[in-house]
């Protein structure tokens, strides 16, 4: 009887998934990159120097990996956590004290911190190697938006445990919005926006209200930030990530000396 591995690799099921032999020779190492959905993000070959660790620092890839970690642990946490004032804090408490796999929260939080840092390091490397220069200008712009999304993802997630740390950090952060020029009720220029003596911009209609869904950080804010954190921002980030990776390929592959 032939070895088990060979039996598996010759089975109809295996062959229906992988349409070519194992990537052990040059031809199949090329084919695998072209026929595998997950691998086709990569080119078939790269400049050796371009993937040297001391050159790329690997931080873009690490950031993407952390995004995936955050997605997976986040989905698992969503099964358990309820974004209401009655339950939010208790659910986190239970995750810490009684839930098996409550460590998902630790991984999610530390992964989030790490992701902010790795995004910065990635941009730092791109700057230091001048990799934003033509033809990659636009991809740098996409990257800056992704930086913003990363910070917003982290910021919205900060509120969800609904403890003192959470609401006061969000209060401090969102207080800025009420000073937005023209659009915040304590911002310069807001006083001009009146119609027939009635203020258009009040504490119940300004930028901060739009962010919080209320005059202060409360139930509405928790819901709003939850939806932003779990749906709106990840979708936006996923779309921009796709564009970012696609443009890496279209703009001449991963950065290397020109």
């Amino acid at each position: 009887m032939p070895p088990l591995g060979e039996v598996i690799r010759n089975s109809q099921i295996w062959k229906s998934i992988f349409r070519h032999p194992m990537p052990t020779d040059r031809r199949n190492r090329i084919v695998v990159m072209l026929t595998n959905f997950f691998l086709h993000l990569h080119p078939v070959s790269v400049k050796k120097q371009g993937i040297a660790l001391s050159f790329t620092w690997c931080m873009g890839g690490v950031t993407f990996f952390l995004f995936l970690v955050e997605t997976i642990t986040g989905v698992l946490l969503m099964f358990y956590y309820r974004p209401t004032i009655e339950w939010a804090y208790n659910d986190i408490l239970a995750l810490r004290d009684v839930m098996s796999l409550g460590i998902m929260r630790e991984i999610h939080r530390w992964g989030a911190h790490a992701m902010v840092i790795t995004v910065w390091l990635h941009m730092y490397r791109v700057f230091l190697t001048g990799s934003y220069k033509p033809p990659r200008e636009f991809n740098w712009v996409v990257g800056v938006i992704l930086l913003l999304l990363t910070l917003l993802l982290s910021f919205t997630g900060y509120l969800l445990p609904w403890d003192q740390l959470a609401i006061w950090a969000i209060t401090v952060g969102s207080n800025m919005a009420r000073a937005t020029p023209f659009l915040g009720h304590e911002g310069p220029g807001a006083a001009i926006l009146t119609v027939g003596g009635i203020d258009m911009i009040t504490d119940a209609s300004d930028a901060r209200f739009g962010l919080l869904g209320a005059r202060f950080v409360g139930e509405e804010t928790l819901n709003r930030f939850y939806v932003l954190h779990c749906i709106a921002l990840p979708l936006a980030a996923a779309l921009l990530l796709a564009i970012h990776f696609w443009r890496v390929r279209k703009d001449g592959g991963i950065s290397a000396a020109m």
Partner: protein
Amino acid sequence: MHVNEAEFLQGISGFLGSYYVTLAVLNGIAALYVWERLEKSRLALVWLALAVFFLALSPLAFSGDSRMMGIISVPGSIRNLVNVVMGIPWAYSTGTLVFLSLLYFFRKFFVKPVVAWSGLNAALLLMGLSITNPSFATIVTKPDNVPIVGLVFLLGFFTWLGANKAVTNDQRMKQGLEPTEKMNSEKILVWPDLVYTELICMIALTALLLVWGILLQAPLEEPASSVKTPNPSKAPWYFLGLQEMLVYYDPWMAGVVLPSLIIFGLMAIPFIDFNKQGNGYYTIEQRKFAYLTFQFGFLVLWVTLIVLGTFLRGPNWNFFGPYEIWDPHKVEALNNIDLSEYFWVIGLERALPSAPAGAGAIEQIGYIILRELPGILLLAGYLLVMPPLMAMTVFRKFFFRMGFLRFMLLANLLLFMMLLPIKMVLRWTVNLKYIIHIDEYFLNF
């Protein structure tokens, strides 16, 4: 905040002991590497001696005994000195700027691996000697602050790595050679070389996150209460640079305008930077202006302000030295003076112009503008006169090569970036509060 000293020392003894053992192991590995690979036996002995030194510190730390811990602590007199010196308002920001400038000017010296490794050891030893201080330990080991300690060391390492490669390339290019990155244009297949690297990275990171998650519990404080305001109330750490700007500017500037300009300015970088050199390899010499501007914005204005906001800002956003107890009753005199007051009251020795009672809205606005005229003129002058002045003097070459629009974009972004350090210096030197102070319309600048 009042922790029993002995209990505190017992509490950290395990961590600190293992910390020194880790440092000993690291230096042991370094010694081995230098001995085996570089065949520098004398240098290997130095690192070996350092390893033995750290190993000798570890039992003192493990003991948790206050007398033993006293030996491996920063002496009280030095701690007080550091607190006092850093308490001078300009000391921290100026100090970090001077420190980074020194690193930059003597980069050829600092990029040597020996120097960097010594520096790292010194920094880690200082951390170890400091952490026996309860105030220092409370702040540094706060779970959400741990990433920032990591960030500081990571940034140190990667700045060093980038500078190291840049210095090598610059020296090569001076001799007419190409940068190291161009030497090897060999192409390799992504399977197996890249995908395996990625796999190893993923496994290592998963392990790191698991260990981090097991060792350090995610913070969870008391349930949220909208009536109990913690003091200090801090934004998430990555926004603390912005929160620190609130000391100098009102929220509409520090929280809205300047952050928007940071994002916009970052996006504009590729369209401002017309320098075709330095694409795809590390270099400093070939793009000095871009390099220095970015480092000033990132390291000096962004990162050091985050470190300041996280570790050195306590109750009431007062400044506290690294070894100082966060006393909520610490009083700091706030005698800041507006520019309008400097001009009218102190300069011309007369009262601030104010509208007479019963004046109409237009008249009131007129008086406000008159009152703030010095500041308005100053700001208008700064934003209108500086760009042409820059174009005619220091940035003359830039102006001709960039064209009008591009140059105006660069000039204005630079001017807005410099608003922060300018206001800082004005605050430190002449206690300036606002350049333009129009409370009536929330327009304070």
